């Protein structure tokens, strides 16, 4: 089994009309055994920037802690929050530093940039960025997620519609993957508020 499949994960981020959604599954496993069903895979960097990390859980935790370190110092020196595009570049640089001994993670970054324009991107474990205008996926269920998102996605969805679409795409994809699932965690972010919801899906 590949090291990327050791813990199991599913992540998706989608762009809507002046908003974005980022969602993950909640399973933490050790190969075939399920250890936790409330694992947080998405973390807030600041009010308008979220980071999801799929892959090996320990690397995801450490990488997140290193990014908080860098972002806190950035905030103190620049006296402002980091823009999503800048943050994506930082993540990419940090991952490439470990080019020959990488973090076994695939990040999904979602945020609101200048003029509240939604920004999403993903990258591979050594920092190759993939910017997308519609959706990005990561994790053991990524192949199913690609298919589900491609068929369910529409441009300029309102936050409520976006939530429905992301939730359906996530739940249907993790149901086809034995290593991810046990519910879902969805964040829908607009310029004015962040709505966090837990999804109940097939608990297996």
């Amino acid at each position, binding site marked *: 089994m590949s090291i990327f499949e050791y813990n199991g994960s599913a992540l998706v981020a989608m762009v809507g009309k002046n908003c974005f959604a980022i969602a993950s599954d909640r399973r933490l496993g050790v190969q075939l055994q399920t250890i936790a069903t409330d694992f947080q895979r998405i973390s807030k960097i600041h009010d308008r920037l979220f980071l999801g990390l799929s892959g090996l859980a320990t690397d995801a935790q450490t990488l997140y*802690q290193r990014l*908080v*370190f860098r972002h*806190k*110092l950035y905030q*103190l020196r620049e006296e402002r929050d980091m823009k999503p595009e800048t943050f994506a570049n930082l993540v990419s640089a940090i991952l490439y530093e470990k080019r020959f001994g990488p973090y076994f993670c695939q990040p999904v970054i979602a945020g609101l940039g200048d003029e509240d324009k939604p920004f999403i991107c993903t990258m591979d474990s050594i920092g190759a960025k993939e910017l997308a205008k519609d959706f990005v996926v990561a994790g053991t269920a990524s192949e199913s997620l690609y298919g589900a998102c491609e068929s369910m996605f529409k441009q300029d969805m309102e936050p409520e519609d976006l939530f429905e679409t992301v939730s359906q795409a996530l739940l249907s994809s993790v149901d086809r993957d034995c290593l991810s699932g046990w519910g879902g965690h969805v964040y829908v972010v607009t310029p004015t508020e962040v709505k966090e919801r837990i999804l109940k899906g097939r608990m297996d």
Partner: protein
Amino acid sequence: NCGSALTKMSRRYDSRTTIFSPEGRLYQVEYAMEAIGNAGSAIGILSKDGVVLVGEKKVTSKLLQTSTSTEKMYKIDDHVACAVAGIMSDANILINTARVQAQRYTYAYQEPMPVEQLVQSLCDTKQGYTQFGGLRPFGVSFLFAGWDKNYGFQLYMSDPSGNYSGWKAAAIGANNQAAQSMLKQDYKDEITREEAVQLALKVLSKTMDSTSLTSEKLELAEVFLTPSGNVKYQVCSSDSLSKLLLKFGVTQPAAETS
């Protein structure tokens, strides 16, 4: 004979930072403190619901480009801030060092660095410059204001020697002795944050050299707990500060110029 010749020779090297004088003093450290005695003053007061920091801005020229950044107060981490007095460029280096130290602690222990440990860590850095390297000490004194879950609100003062101690009220920079004695008289243990602001502004207005006291010459910052229980560092806006100065009756009108 030989002995007196030796002492005469050793006096030539006493000004080096890492060498004691025959009287057991570190001259460079003392000279650094002299430099701070000429800098804009800062006062810190510990109250039961927060810590107040007030600073006097020395350079106020109309030509200065206004910016939102502060000159005397700096945030070190979410739960710790500091006021500076002395050489600004030296202060910037130390503030950056303190910020990185705080983040390194959080990275390792996943919780905010206790205030005293942060102060101690920075003072250890400062002490290094008085013992090795042949480099001069930093010409800065700090007032650290912070909160942690072990000891609540705290106020610390540190100087170029790397020495620090905890205070209920302290003053650094110009006229700090006068300010300190005024604080000693008027400080009460159960002082509230609002009373502390009033006391700090009053003491600063009395010890400042300038003829008029306006919000452009001052900076005021507070470290307190929000109703939700989070530590907050807030710099008072120029407008609120003007209102406070009027409210406490410490605004002195600017002298008429013909």
